[in-house]
């Protein structure tokens, strides 16, 4: 706690915004977020929208994996469930995408709850295998309902009153608000009693049950929330896309999402997830657009397509070895350094 800040109530001590710097950061983030469409061109705006969408998905996975310690390799498939829910609700039923979005969350949440069933008995690798099976099953289901790998989202379903989500600016603001609300809710869950229960299950589930945590229920909640977030993210992805294909929701995407959690900071639900997305998704896209042409020009075009996974794998390995708590821990150390500055202790 910085010097000169005193709290007289527990409520104040446990609030989200405790110190002046929190307030300043919040104001800056809101200003930056809201002014982004004015400053960025369409390419970067789309990049920002994807980052926000993946932020939501990674927050969900971070709750399942980072907070509750239940490995899931099916997050991309759950995103797919949300995306197809929105797509088919818009296409077949003519439901507006904004109204279909909560439905997407709920559908994916139900699937997530089903995925939690193996976690009652299985742990770690075995649980990973169970979620892998779920991922592959869902992929197969997608390939049956969407054999052409293309389900268009009708543009007229993206209009609600005077808001037209076909325009990037409107879509950006919509995504920003949804993502911000989801992040706030995730932060609240993490600091609530449920958050503590999930952490206990992650650290030692037998001990958690001894101290009075209903372990199966907590695991189910963690998977359910993870699914809900994935569904919302998938729904947003469908709104963002002209049309969706199931190749966006494959195992590789699931592993990428898991990589974002591990690199950003498992258990650091809000900001760790954002950092993971910025590094692995946005950072990578920016790098790729510069790197691949250079590699291709050097005659490594075969290498260029594989480089993504080489870099991804190396990065995850290095981060896990050097910083198991994720890159957010580096930021925390920097913060600590400046808090103590000019002393080192």
């Amino acid at each position, binding site marked *: 706690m910085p010097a000169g800040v005193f709290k007289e109530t527990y*409520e104040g001590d446990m609030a989200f915004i405790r110190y002046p710097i929190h307030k300043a950061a919040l104001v800056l983030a809101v200003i930056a977020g809201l002014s982004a469409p004015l400053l960025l061109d369409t390419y970067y705006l789309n990049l920002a929208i994807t980052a926000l969408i993946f932020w939501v998905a990674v927050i969900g996975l971070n709750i399942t994996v980072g907070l509750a310690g239940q490995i899931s390799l099916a997050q991309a498939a759950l995103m797919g469930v949300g995306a197809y829910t929105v797509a088919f609700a818009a296409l077949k039923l003519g439901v507006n995408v904004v109204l279909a979005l909560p439905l997407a969350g709920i559908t994916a949440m139900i699937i997530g709850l089903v995925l939690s069933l193996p976690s009652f008995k299985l742990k770690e690798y075995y649980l990973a295998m169970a979620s892998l099976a779920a991922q592959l099953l869902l992929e197969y289901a997608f390939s049956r309902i969407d054999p052409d790998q293309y389900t268009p989202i009708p543009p007229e379903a993206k209009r609600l009153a005077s808001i037209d989500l076909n325009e990037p600016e409107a879509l950006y603001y919509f995504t920003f608000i949804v993502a911000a609300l989801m992040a706030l*809710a995730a932060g609240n869950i993490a600091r*609530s*009693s449920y958050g503590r229960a999930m*952490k*206990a299950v992650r650290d*030692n589930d037998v001990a958690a049950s*001894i*101290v009075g*945590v209903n372990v199966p229920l907590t695991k189910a909640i963690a998977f359910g929330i993870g699914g809900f977030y994935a569904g919302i993210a998938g729904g947003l992805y469908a709104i963002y896309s002209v049309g969706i294909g199931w190749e966006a929701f494959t195992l590789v995407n699931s592993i990428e999402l898991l990589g974002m959690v591990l690199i950003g900071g498992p258990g650091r639900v809000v900001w760790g997830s954002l950092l993971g997305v910025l590094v692995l998704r946005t950072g990578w896209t920016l790098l790729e657009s510069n790197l691949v042409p250079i590699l291709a020009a050097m005659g490594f075009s075969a290498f260029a397509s594989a480089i993504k996974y080489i870099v991804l794998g190396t990065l995850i390995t290095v981060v896990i070895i050097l910083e198991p708590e994720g890159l957010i821990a580096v930021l925390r150390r920097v913060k600590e350094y400046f808090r103590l500055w000019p002393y080192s202790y």
Partner: protein
Amino acid sequence: MYYTLNPPATNFNEHLINPNWVHLVPHPQPSMEEAKVDMVWDKSSLYKRVWGMGERILWAEGLHLSFGGVRALDGVSIVIRKGELVGLIGPNGAGKTSLLNVISGIYRPERGRVYFKGKDITGMPPHERVKLGIARTFQHGEMFHGMTVLEAIMLRLHPWHRGSIIEAALWGFRAKRWEVEARERAEHIIDLLELQEYRHRPVGSLPPGIQKKVDLAAALVQDPEVILMDEPMAGLSREEKEDIIRAIIEVRETRGTTMVLVEHDLEVVSDICDRVIVMDRGRVIFDGHPEDAVRDEAVITAYIGG
């Protein structure tokens, strides 16, 4: 003079209910003179007078549990009475921790029942037993090493948490109020055990003595009727042990909580416990006053090996 080796049963029919219950043979009640002598001569424990006379709060009958070929519990029956501090001792592998695990619901016994306040809790999941009032501390104090002290203590109030996950996500009025109440209760215990300075430190970064104290604090915040303590003094220095013992005694005197203490250190047990149950190879081999335990032949054989 102590009047008996076996706790005199107040319910003289107990042996009729379970004939295998060899260590609970009916025993004549001490005369008033004897009881008085007991009280006069032994001032070390305020609760001595309760011994063998209080109503039973937690009891188990004929517990059997085995892992593969190993018999962890072989017909164990115990009675814990209200307000007692019972030491549960025995050599390694005697089944002490298994017994605690059966009582707190981690293992389900193959045979036998566990009762708490007259209610059969044998098949009840662990988190519901906590709600009834059975708390437990761990052999390794740092079970949730990543949590701060405050989190580890507030976590224990989760069974009483009302309000859905949606309320928690929206941080509504009820969720906020609950959180503040939980914090108040946690702070009260932190004050009681003088853990203020460690409040925001991760449990894993604390010295073992403090970890054990945090664990005790965390159990106390549940306001239990019975605390099962699994080796609260294992691996501690003498000073840390004294600190924990002081905390245990303080809690007893202020709250009158019933306690079951698994411990290796016979000295500690005979100093603070009202009664000691000695286990060996999954059986109860002695049940009575600590000072008689060290003279009991079966106990000596079990400890020294015969």
